[in-house]
């Protein structure tokens, strides 16, 4: 549990030497308690204090990294139960399951799907994060071969090595240890051997239990064996169990300081019914899973989950923003209308959606309002005549189009005169107030 400023103060040298840059040790302690300063700043702190403070300041949910390099996925480190309390920080990884009973061609096909899964949405690159390869054959050689195939085809994609056989785990881990796979995993029967494999290859270890009592005992044991990076599987498989165990684990870690369950959670969402499977995965994404494993990743499935994950993990205090630019909707000719709006992602999506629905090709100028909507942006001085004029001039759109008419949102009709002053030769037209008025407005112009 986090220590108070006074508790921290008791552990400091109390010399008020100012070497840390703070006027007194107490002032420094207060900053430490608020996590606005680091203990490294104090040159005279004792080893004992370092240990106590280090443990107390460790995040309640341990950070664990899956994979290495550009595609590594950071998990854990969450600090709240509800996104509105602050924000969820490390987006849940989405993984697809393959089995070592599949042919090399089948494995390669899935690896290809994963490699081609990346999309760009609101400036964020999102993709299927990992492949979970399971030792369904029970045969070590087959498992090793499957891992070899995947590692050759998709060397950068993080792997989850799913086997409870320590020999198979060792054989597979040896092949891909550098890419930091997750070994899944350790249970009551194999914990010692599995902990050894994880330790030898310096990789993280999934912990498989039936229920939270067993899980607690097992993580304590494995930690005692020297493995720090763990990922939890309480055995929850139905939606009811997933919601219960994930809630208990997150609460115990955050509110009760229970370190035994202060690790990321893996959730297996596979169902025969794909539509139900994405709902189970959605539950995991919304309610505290750090990895969800799917049976297949058709594009329609992964897109819905990507967008949900983005919605849940967006920082509620920082609105999603679209890059300032002139966007073409449809295939606009040089006399197509030019409209302007703000770069608040929601505004952009709704405006561009309505324009697409109208089937009228246009150019949509998106002005950087720091993520504010049109009216709020106007009120805050971010959607102003001079900013609009400057953007239009610097964008070079003038050279692309055969007219000089800019359509502005109806809510800022008041700006039309001043934009005309600042953009000599341009005609400013006031469009509808709401985006849903755009189709009628655009269609009326083309008739």
């Amino acid at each position, binding site marked *: 549990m986090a220590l108070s400023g006074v508790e921290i103060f008791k552990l400091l040298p109390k010399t008020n030497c100012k070497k840390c840059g703070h006027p007194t040790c107490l002032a420094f302690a207060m900053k430490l308690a608020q996590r606005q300063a680091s203990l490294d700043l104090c040159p005279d702190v004792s080893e004992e204090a370092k240990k106590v403070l280090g443990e107390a300041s460790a995040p309640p949910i341990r950070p664990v990294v899956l994979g290495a390099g550009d595609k590594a996925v950071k998990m854990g480190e969450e600090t709240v139960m*509800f*996104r*509105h309390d602050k924000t969820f920080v490390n987006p849940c990884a989405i993984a697809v399951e393959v089995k070592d009973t599949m042919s090399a061609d089948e494995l390669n096909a899935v690896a290809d799907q994963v490699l081609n899964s990346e*999309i760009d*949405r609101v400036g964020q690159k999102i993709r299927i994060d990992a492949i979970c390869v399971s030792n369904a054959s029970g045969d070590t050689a087959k498992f090793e071969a499957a891992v070899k195939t995947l590692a050759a085809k998709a060397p950068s994609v993080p792997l989850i090595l799913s086997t409870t056989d320590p020999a198979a785990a060792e054989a597979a881990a040896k092949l891909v240890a550098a890419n930091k796979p997750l070994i899944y995993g350790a249970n009551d029967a194999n914990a010692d051997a599995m902990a050894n494999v994880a330790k030898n290859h310096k990789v993280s270890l999934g912990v498989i239990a039936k*229920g*939270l*009592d067993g*899980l*607690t*005992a097992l993580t*304590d044991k494995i930690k005692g064996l020297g493995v720090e990076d763990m990922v939890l599987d309480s055995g929850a498989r*139905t*939606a*009811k169990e997933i*919601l*219960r165990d994930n*809630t*208990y684990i997150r*609460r*115990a870690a955050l*509110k*009760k300081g*229970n370190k*035994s*369950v202060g690790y990321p959670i893996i959730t297996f969402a596979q169902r025969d*019914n*794909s*539509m*139900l499977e*994405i*709902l*189970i995965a*959605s*539950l995991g994404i*919304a*309610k505290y899973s750090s990895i969800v494993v799917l049976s297949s990743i*058709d*594009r*329609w*499935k992964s*897109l*819905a*989950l990507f*967008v*949900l994950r*983005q*919605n*849940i993990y*967006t920082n*509620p205090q920082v609105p999603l923003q679209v890059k300032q630019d002139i966007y073409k909707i449809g295939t606009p000719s040089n006399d197509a209308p030019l409209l302007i709006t703000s770069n608040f992602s*929601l505004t952009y*999506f*709704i405006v*561009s*959606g309505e324009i*697409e*629905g109208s089937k009228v090709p246009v150019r949509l100028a998106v002005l950087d309002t720091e993520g504010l909507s049109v009216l709020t942006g106007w009120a805050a001085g971010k959607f102003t005549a001079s900013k609009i004029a400057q953007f239009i001039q610097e964008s070079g759109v003038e050279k692309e189009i055969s007219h000089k008419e800019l359509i502005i949102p109806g809510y800022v009709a008041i700006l039309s005169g001043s934009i005309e002053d600042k953009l000599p030769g341009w005609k400013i037209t006031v469009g509808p107030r709401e985006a849903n008025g755009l189709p*009628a407005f655009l269609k009326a112009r083309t008739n």
Partner: protein
Amino acid sequence: MAFTAPNETFAGKVFAVDAGLDKKITFGGENVLPFHLFEGDVPNRPVVAYEIQDVPPADWPETIKKVYEGVSSDPVTWAKFCQDKLNARAIAIRLVGTHPDRENRSPEDAAKTVKDVLAAITVPLIILGSNHIEKDAAVLVAAAEAAKDKNCFLGKAQEENYKTIVAACMANNLKLIAMSQLDINLSKQLNILITQMGYNKENLVTDPMCSALGYGLDYTYSVMERIRLAALTQNDVTMQMPMLADVGINSWKAKESIATEAELPIGGTLEQRAIAWEAVTACALMIAGSELLIMRHPEAINAVEKFIDELM
């Protein structure tokens, strides 16, 4: 070491609300966060209502329009199809044809449609206006008279027109849906204004304004979570109404529910993508706290029902 379950119990409780006469539905009534059966009472499952409308769904995307081909030209046939063939637990009729920019149907016409649909079905009916502030006030008053004593839901009352609609509900003994614009305080304020008119707070459903996956879902999700936490942790009786998620109308407007695979290659098959869009939107908002959902596609609704089965 044994794991000590960190249960949380609350002073507050969500009101249970029912609708219908023959085949009654009841939702709400829980004293814990959504589906937290492990630490409290969740006596009722959420209800999904099938959305129909008073005029043919010319503006619905092809993928959803074709499901109701042959029945959607007449609201009575459409309603019976949902009840008898799709096993709808409830039906929501949106009187979108009354909107001045649409067919501009009269309140009398709307009332007749409501009467005809009510005569044809036994499951509960939710009656929705066209979301035109002035016209809704007239249309919903006429619709309320047509639905007198039938234990229907009527909506949506908004800040600008709630007085007329609340009065119509009181005069005709109906339940009410009140919508505010994505803000916990506005939602609370509207609930207070409505109950100050003498309307029973236990007959009210709150619509904090729905948004679709990728199009503001994060806002609706968090407003719902915050409303529910206020109901439970602060025992705030002005926030203890069940919540409505008007999923279908929002989800089927999303680009992802309309664009073909050629237009949106990253989205894969259109039909499954559109169904998934509606189902995921619904599922997220159910997890956030909504107990009444209005949806369109039978496959999305079936998936959501299976999901509820697993959670309960």
